C-alpha cells in the first residue's frame, strides 16, 4: 500500500508565478518506509511538506496521503498525520508536559493511551516535564516536538529538517529514534540538507530547484555513479584545484573535506591524472581511489 502519492505537483510563488518552488514533482512512498528528501536550502522541501500536510494548496497536480486526497479529504488527513515543522513551533510558555497533554487532547487521545509509542523518546525529557518548552535545549526541543507529533499515533509522519541546528550527537540519537519508529509501521518522510543523513534512509529523493533529480535507495544512487573518482590532496589546494579545472580528462573537480574529489570523464582519466601529479613533482601530494558517496552523486546530478 502506498502511504504517500504525489503526481505532477506544481507550486509557484509570486504574483506572476515567477518563483517555481515545485515543478512537476512525482513520487510515491510505500507504507512503513523511511523516505528521505535531500536537497539544499530553497530546493522546495518545505513547500512539498506543507502541501502534503494540507497547509498549502498546490497550483496543479495531485497528491494523496494514506489514500486521502490532500485537497478534498484534508480533514481526514489532519487526523492521521504528524507534522514537525522546521522551526520549533510549540508553546514556549507552556511546560513540556502541558504541551504534550494539549496536543494529545486536541487529537482526542491521552498521553497514557499512546505512551508506548513515545516512551523511548519521552523518557529522555521526562525529568524536565515541568520546565517551560522555551527553556529547553535545542536537542530536547526536538525530542519534545517529535513526541507531540507522535502523540496521536499518526500513520504518516512528516519531519521538516528535524536535525538542522542540532549537534552531532543529538542528530545521531534522532536518527536512531526514527529507526525505532519505523518498526511501529509508521511511514516517515524526512527532509534534510545533510547528505550524510541520506544513507540512513530506506529511500531518498534528491531534490533541487523544485525538481527531483533521482529517487532510489542510497546504495542504488551510489551504484549509479559510473565515472571514476579519485581524491587528491597537496599543500597548495587552491592551486591544485585551479590546475585540475583546466584539464581535459577531468569532468568535475570540487573540494571535499580535506581532499579534492576529481571525477574523470572515463577510465583513461585515472592514468592521465597520475601522470599529471607526477609531473607536478610536489611531494606533499596524496592521491587515491575514492569511493563515491551520496554527495558526489548529488553534485554529479546537479551538473548534468
Amino acid at each position: 500500500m502506498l502511504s504517500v502519492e504525489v503526481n505532477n505537483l506544481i507550486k509557484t510563488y509570486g504574483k506572476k508565478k515567477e518563483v517555481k518552488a515545485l515543478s512537476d514533482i512525482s513520487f510515491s512512498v510505500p507504507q512503513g518506509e523511511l523516505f528521505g528528501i535531500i536537497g539544499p536550502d530553497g530546493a522546495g522541501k518545505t513547500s512539498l511538506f506543507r502541501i502534503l500536510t494540507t497547509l498549502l494548496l498546490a497550483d496543479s497536480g495531485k497528491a494523496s496521503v494514506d489514500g486521502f486526497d490532500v485537497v478534498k479529504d484534508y480533514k481526514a488527513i489532519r487526523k492521521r498525520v504528524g507534522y514537525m515543522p522546521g522551526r520549533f513551533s510549540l508553546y514556549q510558555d507552556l511546560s513540556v508536559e502541558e504541551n504534550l497533554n494539549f496536543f494529545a487532547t486536541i487529537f482526542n487521545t491521552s498521553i497514557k493511551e499512546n505512551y508506548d509509542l513515545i516512551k523511548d523518546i519521552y523518557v529522555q525529557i521526562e525529568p524536565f516535564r515541568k520546565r517551560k518548552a522555551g527553556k529547553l535545549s535545542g536537542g530536547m526541543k526536538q525530542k519534545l516536538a517529535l513526541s507531540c507529533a507522535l502523540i496521536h499515533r499518526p500513520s504518516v509522519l512528516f519531519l521538516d529538517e528535524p536535525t538542522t541546528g542540532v549537534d552531532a550527537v543529538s542528530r545521531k540519537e534522532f536518527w536512531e529514534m526514527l529507526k525505532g519508529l519505523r518498526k511501529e509501521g509508521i511511514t516517515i518522510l524526512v527532509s534534510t540538507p545533510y547528505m550524510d543523513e541520506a544513507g540512513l534512509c530506506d529511500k531518498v529523493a534528491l531534490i533541487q530547484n523544485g525538481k527531483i533529480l533521482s529517487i532510489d535507495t542510497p546504495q542504488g544512487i551510489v551504484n549509479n555513479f559510473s565515472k571514476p573518482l579519485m581524491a587528491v590532496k597537496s599543500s597548495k589546494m587552491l592551486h591544485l584545484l585551479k590546475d585540475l579545472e583546466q584539464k581535459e580528462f577531468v569532468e568535475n573537480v570540487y573540494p571535499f573535506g580535506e581532499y579534492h574529489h576529481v571525477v574523470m570523464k572515463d577510465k583513461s582519466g585515472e592514468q592521465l591524472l597520475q601522470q599529471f601529479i607526477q609531473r607536478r613533482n610536489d611531494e606533499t601530494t596524496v592521491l587515491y581511489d575514492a569511493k563515491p558517496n551520496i554527495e558526489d552523486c548529488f553534485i554529479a546530478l546537479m551538473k548534468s
Partner: protein
Amino acid sequence: MRTLKFLLRKEFRQIFRDPAILRLILIMPVIQLLILPWAADYEIKKIKLAVVDHDHSEYSRKLINKITSAGYFILTDYSSSYEQSLEKIEYDKADLVLQIPSHFEKELVKENEAKLFMAINAINGVKANLGGAYLRTIIQDYNREVRMEWIQLPKFSPEVQIEVASSNWFNPLMNYKYFMVPGILVILLTMVGTNLTAINIVKEKEIGTIEQINVTPIKKYHFILGKLIPFWIMGLFVLTIGLTIARLAYGIIPAGSFLTIYVFAAVYLLAVLGLGLLISTYSVNQQQSMLLSFFLMMIFILLGGLYTSIDSMPEWAKWITRFNPVSYFIEVMRMVVLKGSSLADIKFHLFKVFGFAVVFISWAIFSYHKRS
C-alpha cells in the same frame, strides 16, 4: 465541547503566565481612570490676561478687579502700551489683551457709552473661544452693575429685557468628570479588547504555533471561540475594575442599572473582539497589528464623541461616527450613568452594536484560513 474546554484551559494558562499582560490589564485602567479625567478638563482656567489701561480711572480699576476676581483669569501684565502687551502674546505670556481706552470713565459717564477692545491669541482655539466668551460675560455683568448704580430702575423697565435662568439636568453641578469617566472607560475597554485579541493571534503566527494547530483536526470555530471567550471575560473584568474606580475615586454611581451597562458591554465586547480578530487575520506580525489597531483607535477616539460633540461635526464626519462602535458605547454609557436610561431606551444602540459584532466576527471567520 471537549476540545473547546482544552483550548480555553491552554489560553488561560498562557494569559496567567504572562505577567506583563496581567499587570497591564490591572494597572492600565487604574492609572488611566485616576489620571486622565483630571487632565482632560473642559473648563478653561488660568487664562493669562494682559490689560492695557490708558484710562487709569476708578471705573477701569473696578472692571479689572471684577475680571480677576472671577477666578478664570490671571493678570499677567498691566501696561499702558498695546504693542507691549501684544509682545506678551507673542511670547505666550498672555492669552488675551484687554484694552481700556483713555477717557473710558469720562465717556461712560458723559455719553453713557464706552468702548473696550479685546485681542485674543487664537492658536489654541478652545482657549481663545472660551476665554473671549468668559470675558464678554464678565464685562456685560459689569455693564449692568454700572447701570444699576446710576439709575434706580423703575418697577417696569422701559427697555425690554430677557433674563435667562438655566438649570443643568442630569448633571446639576456640570461636573465634567461624570461626563468623561464613562467615556474613558469605553476607550479602555475597546483598547484591551482589540489589542489583546489581535496580538494574541498574531503572536501564534509569529512563533509558528498556528502552523502546528492548523495541521490538527481542531475546527475553525473552536479555535476562534477559544480566543474570544478568554478576552471577553477579561473585558468584563476590566469594566468591573473601571466602574469600581469610578465609584471610589469620583463617586460616580450610575443612575441606571448595572445590568444595562453589563448587557451592553457584553455585546459591545463581541464587536470589539471581532475587530481584533479581523486585524489579526490581516496582519503577519505584531508590528503590523499594533500599527493597524493604533490607527483605528485614533479614529475611534477622535470621531467617537469622547472629547468633542458629534452633533457639531460636519455631515461627512457624522457618517463616519455611525460606523464607529465606540461612539455608540460612549453615548450609551453616558445615557445610563447620567440619565438612568434603561435597556428599552438603548435598544437601537444595542441592535447596531450587535450588527457590528456579527459583521466583524463573520468577516474574521471568513478570512481566517487554516491553509494558504
